[in-house]
């Protein structure tokens, strides 16, 4: 954490103030608590950490959590962007209600969301019953976990893309059309590149949230070891045994993988921005 940050000269005001607030709050709220976890892990020792993580059940849970979080975030990337586009660009009856509904996944406590989703998608639920008729089991399978993660992550993509679409100057599109580009071409070459940074941010956040999600998933997952057992559940199990070291070890493993994934996405984002000329 002692990496030196070198700031280029800039005519912009407020460098000291904004840097001060950012770094001090980051330290107090995020780095200090996470530092406590890393400290705990350091005392436990690398070989101890590895012994906890290197078990088939832990690998299976980590793989499950990261894979489904990725898939759910990918789904949200497409659907969330589409939703944002529809909400900003089109006018239709009930648009404001739909706009309000996007935030619901955050407003519902995760446990309530889990219970409500399970009620709907269980084999005797309204939608789960329909799916069961074509032999598709949703609740208590990996589909259930996917669904819960899509639910908790959806607002991230929509709400990060939405303000960017609001700000897009329609004249840019008109200019593109005037120059003879087809609508599809304009969307692909002009609009999508503009949305990419925000959409990637939403993707990253949605995935990060999905990896750690616990409350809503445990109701719909089935929680069978090696099949539908998510990594956060393993942490809870270790805590139930008062095994703080092992719980911290799995927590650290998840943290490390998430950090690397997020960093990669953020680097890609900065790189893609440079490439298309917005610095």
């Amino acid at each position: 954490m002692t990496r030196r940050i070198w700031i280029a000269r800039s005519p912009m005001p407020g460098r000291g103030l904004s840097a001060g607030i950012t770094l001090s709050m980051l330290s107090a709220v995020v780095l200090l608590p996470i530092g406590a976890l890393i400290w705990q892990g350091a005392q436990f020792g690398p070989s101890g950490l590895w012994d906890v993580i290197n078990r088939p059940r832990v690998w299976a849970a980590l793989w499950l959590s990261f894979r489904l979080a990725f898939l759910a975030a990918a789904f949200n990337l497409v659907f969330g962007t589409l939703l944002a586009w529809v909400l900003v660009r089109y006018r239709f009856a009930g648009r404001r209600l739909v706009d309000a509904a996007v935030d619901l996944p955050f407003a519902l406590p995760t446990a309530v969301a889990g219970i409500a989703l399970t009620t709907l998608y269980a084999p005797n639920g309204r939608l789960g019953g329909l799916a069961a008729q074509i032999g598709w089991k949703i609740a208590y399978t990996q589909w259930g976990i996917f669904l819960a993660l899509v639910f908790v992550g959806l607002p991230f993509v929509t709400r990060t893309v939405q303000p960017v679409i609001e700000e897009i100057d329609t004249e840019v599109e008109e200019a593109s059309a005037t120059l003879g580009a087809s609508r599809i071409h304009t969307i692909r070459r002009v609009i999508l590149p503009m949305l990419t940074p925000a959409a990637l941010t939403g993707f990253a956040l949605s995935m990060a949230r999905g990896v750690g999600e616990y409350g809503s998933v445990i109701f719909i997952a089935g929680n069978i070891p090696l099949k539908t057992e998510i990594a956060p559940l393993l942490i809870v199990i270790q805590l139930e045994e008062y095994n703080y070291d092992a719980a911290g070890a799995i927590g650290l493993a998840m943290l490390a993988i998430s950090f690397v994934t997020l960093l990669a996405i953020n680097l890609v984002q900065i790189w893609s921005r440079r490439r298309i000329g917005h610095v």
Partner: protein
Amino acid sequence: MTIRPTFLTLALLAVAPQVHAQDLLNVSYDPTRELYREVNEAFAQSWSDQGHDAARLETSHGGSGAQARAVIEGLDAQVVTLALASDIDKIAEAGKLPADWQARLPHNSSPYTSTIVFLVRAGNPKGITDWGDLTKDGVEVITPNPKTSGGARWNYLAAWAWAEANDRDPKAFVHDLFANVPVLDTGARGATTTFAQRGIGDVLLAWENEAWLAQQELGSDQFQIVTPSVSVLAEPPVAMVDANIKDDAQRELATAYLEYLYTPQAQAMAFAHYYRAWDDSQADPEDVARFPKMNLVTIEDLGGWAKLQPEHFGDGGIFDQIYAGP
């Protein structure tokens, strides 16, 4: 601009816990909320009637293990009333109460007990009468995960006790039993919901008090209770947390509170909330008659928590081996 900070300060003061001697925090586990609501009211009344200052009784409810951890990490509980003696043992290990706490009150410090029974669908379509039926092909069993739920440990141990009593290999029996479990919820309430409201499974393993409560709340025409030939005597113990007692007045209050749980009045309330209590002298005869006589194995018969907990539910223990593959 000055209005907001003042408002916040006031609001903070209103919410911040106020400490005075006649406060008592009872940290309990999930299904006892209604029981202690009633007990607290009655006790507060009798405490004032005896000429004391009015006591403020607070309760906190959650999973038994999580609640024990909170007390170890500093939750200021004067009294704990948890699901398993092993959870209070952990608090004792942290130095908050003496190791022999369980000998300080009658009946192993358990003012009420319960046991594990089966809840099946109306008419018992799969003909389930005893533990042996649960490992048959095509029978789906719902139980929470013993690793995350105190109640589920009693389920598991009851199955183990039956296998031992019937000359079956207990390890193979619990293995077969859990092979029939399609959903492992993390808590007792989640498992009840999965069984009763989602329609999953043929039989739910549950605390007797939860089974009665579920039947009452979710419809007695849909479910019926089956009592197996052997089960365990589940003893949810209570204890005073000595390290969190501030002065003699609070000690007196905590002691009186725990002793009150053994009075005929409190025992009658426990019966009314579907617990098997000890003293039925003031209980409604109907509440008592509900419980059939059962062959109940105690935790000491099985070897005691100190041995059972690590052997069965510890990291890599017998329960973990069920899912480690053949």
